[in-house]
């Protein structure tokens, strides 16, 4: 089993695995997201409090979840790369950052759109939205730091350290925002939490979760190939790999 772990540190192996897995991830993602959207938008019964507006949950919650999952992945990959000097970790972190940032933006926009019918305002300093906003800033910081270095290896290491420091901060940020928000919340406690959920509402949501995860897998595979190539340009195996 450990040989499999060792193989994961090998750029050509990872490149090959990513290339092979991508179409599977993408195909399954299309199916699960397709089902989730159709069933959730078309067939789930309307929520008795929020009506049809609750359907935004099918896009908002998976993207918010993924934004945090991807940040954690990015920090973990960067941390592993820093500690054990495994370059593939940096490739995974670099590949994940734009995906995570875009999903954070999606979560913010959909959360804001959900806020208008629910709270009457496009923006509210609700703990969820505020933490998401700060998460977006963290992503941008990591991406900017990586690109600011002329030496890409150094940029990778700096970005990895920042990602880890940021990851340590995420629970703190989340807790502080919740505490801060509880000071200001009156009657409008966020109904943005989980509405009491019936099965016909739940399955499409779970499908969307799985679909977004698979989609991340697919896009990660694509970006990872590019990132690995960028870091291994001089290596011999690259000649064969780019012929495809």
């Amino acid at each position, binding site marked *: 089993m450990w040989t499999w772990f060792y193989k994961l540190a090998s750029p050509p192996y990872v490149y090959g695995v990513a290339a092979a897995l991508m179409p599977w991830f993408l195909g399954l993602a299309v199916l699960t997201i397709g089902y989730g959207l159709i069933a959730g938008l078309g067939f789930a019964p309307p929520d008795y409090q929020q009506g049809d507006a609750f359907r935004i949950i099918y896009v908002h919650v998976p993207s918010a979840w993924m934004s945090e999952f991807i940040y954690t992945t990015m920090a973990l990959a960067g941390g592993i790369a820093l500690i054990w000097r495994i370059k593939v970790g940096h490739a995974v972190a670099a590949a994940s950052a734009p995906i995570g940032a875009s999903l954070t933006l999606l979560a913010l926009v959909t959360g804001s759109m959900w806020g208008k019918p629910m709270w009457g305002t496009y923006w509210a300093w609700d703990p969820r939205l505020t933490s998401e906003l700060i998460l977006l800033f963290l992503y941008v*910081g990591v991406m900017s730091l990586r690109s600011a270095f002329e030496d890409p290896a*150094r940029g990778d290491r700096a970005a990895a350290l*920042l990602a880890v420091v940021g990851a340590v*901060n995420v629970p*703190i940020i989340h807790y502080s925002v919740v*505490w*801060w928000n509880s*000071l200001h919340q009156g009657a409008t406690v966020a109904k943005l939490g989980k509405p009491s959920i019936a099965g016909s509402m739940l399955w499409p949501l779970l499908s969307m979760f799985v679909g977004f995860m698979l989609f991340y897998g697919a896009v990660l595979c694509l970006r990872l190939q590019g990132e690995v190539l960028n870091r291994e340009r001089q290596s011999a195996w690259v000649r064969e790999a780019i012929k495809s």
Partner: protein
Amino acid sequence: MTVGAWEAFWLIVRREMRLSFRRPEQLLQPLVFFLIVTTLFPLGLSLQLSLLRDIAPGVLWVAALLSALLSLDFLFKSDADDGTLEQLALSGHGLTVIVAAKTLAHWLVTGLALVLVSPIVGTALGIPVDAFATMLVSLALGTLTLSWLGAIGAGLTIGLRRGNVLLSLIVLPLAMPLLIFGAGATDRAVSGTNAAGALYLLAALCVFTCTLAPFAAAAALRITLE
């Protein structure tokens, strides 16, 4: 003659303070910036002092944050420029001790100065005198934490083009919980409620950061210097 870690620590702290006082503009500029920024808000909002009181904690804290960011420039830059930083790194005392000493010294001349000036600024913003104790404690804890967070950011951005902007981009999101607890504590003191909870949270944050940040900042320097 070998110097132990503690001795090295205090040697560096004393050195940093001596160097800082030789360049007084390094100390005065962030302070003046702090005063200017706090002036901007009443000018921009043209509020009565009694109304200004409501936003005063927030204004105070944002101004402190921004001026602390400005002062972080001085933490590593001059030593990095003339090669002293590398010499210190090679000295065998461990980068963590060195970074800890430099950051503490930095706070003593910047953050602490801010804290000492804050009663003046607080009065100008309408903060009542009985909130001063909370304000001072929260600013002291907050600026200390900020120096630590800033040390990590400064370590990562030494020598980068537009490093200042990047530094702000990196440090400010990490400093948001600080802002929340610090301004929250001062706010509660101003409105007369018990600020103890927020102060405890702030203290916890400070201890947490002071314990872990030296290692992170040292790692950052290792990445930048090698």
